[in-house]
């Protein structure tokens, strides 16, 4: 019988997941999706002291964008890899737009240079997920080889399907973010140096990212995707998509 590489993580008890963080997030997840007013990152920083549902309690260093125009040297570098359908490629472009807008992150095409590595994942078949487990394993080796702390984030349908279980099974995962929660990504990504793990898998009936112009993955191409709707209610017997999007 074949044991996939991630099976070694099955009994891992975990390091550094702040239980208050997870409890707050899971509590919020119980709220019905849709209609939550999403604040900008600047709102979060303004009210940092007074947020009652703050999911990290350690004080943040003064972020670069409050010190004026950030130079690229102070921006954190992110590397993003996409798996699965065209919707995921389009969502990657939305994520890139959100991260660029935050003025904390800049994209790198080289994983070794990155401070943050994001995987946009697919859950349609077991094989699709196996690829991700294997990739996470290779990222764990990368971190060890480079001897640096890289924030690893799993986005997309596998994030939505497995939620906190992802972090339990693969300790290299720091952030889990589902397809309706990408606006929250900058907040989830800052301040993970102290081993804080963060998760946002809230599903929304309304989120369409309609106001976000996707940054195109390849600006030289003469073709573009335009996402016009999200999710599926058809409930075909074999398909997981209605549960992840």
């Amino acid at each position, binding site marked *: 019988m074949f044991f996939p590489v991630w099976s070694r993580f099955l009994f891992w008890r975990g390091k550094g997941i702040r239980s208050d963080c997870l409890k707050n997030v899971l509590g919020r997840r119980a709220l019905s999706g849709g209609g939550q007013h999403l604040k900008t990152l600047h709102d979060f920083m303004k009210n940092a002291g007074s947020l009652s549902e703050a999911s990290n309690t350690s004080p943040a260093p003064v972020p670069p964008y409050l010190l004026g125009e950030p130079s690229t040297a102070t921006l954190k570098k992110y590397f993003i890899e996409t798996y699965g*359908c*065209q*919707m995921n490629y*389009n969502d990657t472009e939305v994520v890139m737009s959100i991260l660029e807008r935050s003025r904390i992150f800049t994209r790198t095409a080289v994983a070794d240079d990155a401070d943050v590595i994001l995987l946009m994942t697919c*859950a*349609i*078949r*077991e*094989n699709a997920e196996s690829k991700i487990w294997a990739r996470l394993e290779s990222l764990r080796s990368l971190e060890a080889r480079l001897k640096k702390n890289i924030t690893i984030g799993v986005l997309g349908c596998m994030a939505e*399907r497995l939620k906190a279980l992802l972090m339990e099974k693969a300790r290299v995962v720091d952030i889990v973010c589902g397809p309706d929660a990408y606006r929250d990504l900058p907040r989830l990504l800052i301040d993970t140096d102290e081993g804080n793990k963060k998760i946002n898998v809230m599903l929304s009936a309304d989120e369409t990212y*309609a*106001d976000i*112009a996707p940054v195109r993955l390849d600006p*030289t*191409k*003469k*073709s*573009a*995707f*335009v*996402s*016009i*709707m*999200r*999710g*599926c*209610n*058809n*409930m*075909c*017997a*074999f*398909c*997981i*998509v209605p*549960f992840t*999007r």
Partner: protein
Amino acid sequence: MESIVDEVRRLSEEGIKEVTLLGQNVNSYSDESDIVHQGEEQKRAEDRLLSRGFKTVYKTRAHGLKFVDLLDKVSAVDPEMRVRFTSPHPKDFPDELLVLMKERPNICKQIHLPVQSGSSAVLERMRRGYTREAYLGLVKHIRSLIPQVSLSSDFIVGFCGETEADHHDTLNLVSSVGYDMAYMFAYSMREKTLAHRRYQDDVPEEVKQKRLRELIDLFYSIQATRVQADVGTEQLVLVEGPSRKSESDLSGKADGGRNIVFRRELLLDPKSNITRFPLPGDYVIVRIESCKGSTPIGRCLAFSSIKEFSLRGSCS
């Protein structure tokens, strides 16, 4: 709807030559934000909604602007910009949509029509909302309106309870439809789905793989025939750039979506009256001369445009 049309307009201004509208069920799109539209839409509701012989599990909303309205507006933004869409569900192809596709030269004649299985018994268990007969009827109907249409499908092999007879139904269907592209996979049971709750994943893995192999072999032999049949025809190709295998060749998609490779040659640009090489974003007429596997190889003849090519009277 306006936000989508605005985005397409902006892309056109940036020089984008092809947009693909995306959604898990792209043609179930419905914009109910504008109440003014509700009254008129309700009157024509039934006719506008579903393909003949298809049904949905959720209550179809009669009011609101539909996919055909969106496609109408989007394709009108720039008649020289190609418009494609994916992934649609077979149930959402009312006549209105097919007629629009037929009449608008820049809406590509390519339809992804995922059937999943050719057996009505399996389709019923899958809760797809159509029978084999209804699906084949839709294919026939689409082809009667758009004869040159390029069809593709998804297939799940080895779904719960699939018998050899069911599998043969799928093979027969593939033979009779003649798809230009197929995405074929063995069934992988997923937690939370209805199949996980109600059925057993009871087709053994080696049987799934055998059936998958048979489907793949059948599909590729049929695809080869179809690609061969295009040899000698002229296609309007939107140039994408150097072909993957050779720097001296260029490639781009024909209207039906197939990738065409052709040698990089100087052509006369009628707008500037100078000869130059085709660049990404140019439309060129390519005559197909041979094929390598499933890739047609041809020679570029001239620069062209969607409008000019559509006036030629033949689209393939």
